[in-house]
């Protein structure tokens, strides 16, 4: 295990995943909705990146696109590329993608109850996954499954493996999902709001477990979340999305110390925080997220921005590196 971690560190500068100009559209009754509009980012091996934004910003769709799981119809990857170690996933056939899913890239979802099949014991579901991707006998797979359950912190794994999903608590189910996702040693884990459905105390346990396993397995992780607190605690890099595009991409320490985009600034300001003295009024971002069907032609945030200029309404600012920082921001007048 130690050797593996060292290897992962040595290769940490390697780019594992590179998403370029990804565009995903959905056909709806009212017209075409562009859920992801020109998203680009890279992820290095072993790195944890937070994909942050409010509902409808396209963060989940981006995650699904990487796995080739965009429901089609109505969804469709219109353009762009998703390269995993140099291989463009958008060009692969469904059987080829299926081989990659689970073994190279895994995903865990928000709702662990619906992600597990209620009529099968968790053991048989785990064994299925293991044997689909690895040459294992039933007995080997069974042993491996128990080992994985123990790794994610499930007490009495040999007993629990015989149980059905409904017999487990929410936290335990999410741990089972994590065990299944990690059982084939993926290089990249996409975690979509993995702790949102859990209670605070359980959330803390599960996050801790994820971080521990991640360094143990040396895998990269994309953490999709709306919770900036979770991002601050787990991620090294954060990507802020809004209405289908990336507004800011920065190292987490930078992002929280010097948010550059007015949206990031507003978002950080509007979270109620635990503090000694209670604020009388929370700073807010006025207005609301625009309808994806009627997006403004310029900057998507223009209508809610307190620094809006003529230029912002005419042309969409592109994501560009800010001089002397490692921050990329899509704004004409960053803070």
């Amino acid at each position, binding site marked *: 295990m130690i050797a593996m971690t060292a290897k992962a560190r040595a290769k940490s500068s390697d780019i594992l995943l590179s998403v370029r100009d990804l565009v995903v559209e959905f056909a*709806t*009754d*009212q017209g075409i909705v562009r859920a992801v509009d020109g998203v680009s980012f890279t992820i290095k091996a072993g790195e944890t990146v937070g994909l942050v934004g409010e509902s409808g910003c396209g963060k989940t769709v981006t995650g699904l696109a990487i796995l080739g799981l965009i429901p089609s119809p109505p969804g469709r990857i219109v353009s762009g590329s998703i390269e995993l170690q140099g291989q463009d996933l958008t060009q692969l056939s469904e059987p080829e993608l299926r081989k990659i899913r689970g073994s190279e890239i895994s995903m865990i979802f928000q709702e662990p109850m619906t992600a597990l099949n209620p009529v099968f014991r968790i053991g048989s579901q785990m064994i299925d996954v293991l044997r689909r991707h690895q040459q294992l006998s039933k007995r080997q797979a069974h042993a491996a499954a128990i080992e994985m359950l123990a790794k994610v912190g499930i007490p009495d794994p040999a007993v629990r493996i015989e149980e059905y999903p409904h017999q487990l608590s929410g936290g335990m189910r999410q741990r089972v999902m994590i065990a299944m996702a990690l059982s084939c040693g993926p290089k990249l884990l996409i975690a979509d709001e993995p702790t949102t459905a859990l209670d605070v105390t359980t959330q803390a346990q599960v996050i801790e477990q994820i971080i521990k396993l991640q360094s143990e397995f040396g895998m990269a992780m994309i953490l999709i979340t709306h919770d900036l607190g979770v991002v601050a605690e787990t991620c090294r890099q954060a990507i802020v999305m809004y209405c289908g595009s990336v507004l800011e991409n920065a190292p987490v320490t930078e992002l929280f110390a010097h948010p550059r985009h007015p949206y990031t600034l507003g978002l950080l300001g509007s979270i109620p925080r635990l503090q000694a003295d209670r604020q009388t009024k929370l700073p807010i971002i006025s207005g609301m997220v625009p309808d994806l069907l*009627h997006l403004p032609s310029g900057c998507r945030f223009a209508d809610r921005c307190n620094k809006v200029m003529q230029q912002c309404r005419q042309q969409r600012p592109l994501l560009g590196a800010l001089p002397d920082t490692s921050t990329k921001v899509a704004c004409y007048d960053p803070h």
Partner: protein
Amino acid sequence: MSTMNTSAVSGIDGHGDSLWLKAARKFKRDRVGMWALFGVFIYAVIALGVVFGFWGGAWADVTGPKWAPVSAEYWFGTNIIGQDIFARALYSTRTAFEVGLLVAIGATALGAVFGAVAGFFSGTWIDEIIIWVMGVLDSVPFILLVAAIAYSLGGSPWAMHIAMIATFWIGTARLVRGEVIKLKTLEYVEAAHAIGLGKVKIIFRHILPNTFHILLVQATISFVAAIKSEVILSFLGLGVKDGMSWGLMISESTFEVLAGFFNNFIAASVLMFGLVMAFNMFSDALQDALDPRSVK
């Protein structure tokens, strides 16, 4: 801004709610559904024409020879005593609509009310009584029930209608009950309790309107079932008493078919098949259009 205003206006004009407008838009895109609706429409025109006396009035007159073949004068030929089969078939369309509509409306209304009341009071004695009544009615063979009702009503021409309504509402009630059990736990129903609204008003104002999609589909299903049952009951002599129907035509044709004359039989069964088919497809398309999971 302008888009906001138009949607606000359409909300008022559409009155029935823009959820319905969306369903209508979706239905319009369903080509099979639109063709089915067109078919149903033609049948409806035929039935209305009979009601207003444009055609089909001469169904009982003996106008020609026995078993006349298809001709310009007798489009579908004549029957065993020389009555025009075409006129009888048209008149039967009216009967079919009459039976179908009455039963559909009656059974759906009854099912809606009892289903909603049972669902709203689920777990109490009110629910248990309604379920018990449904179970009892369900366990009596349908034809026996019609015979019993016909007997007790002294051979009333409405015995068939009443018997159908008395049994068809059960399916609707079961579906509505299930939906209401789900709806009554929703927060807007709780909100209605919180502002002090009475139970009856909560059922009729907040719960039943949200089962309309089920009721509409159930009404179309009852309509088809009623038409098909009418044919069987009339064939058995338990159905239509005065007037003419496809069931009676088929019943008549039993003698004719043995003698090798098929006009009566074919006219009635093809017309009935057409209407049932069109209505079924219409009902399917309606279900799709009203499916809340696909109405975004």
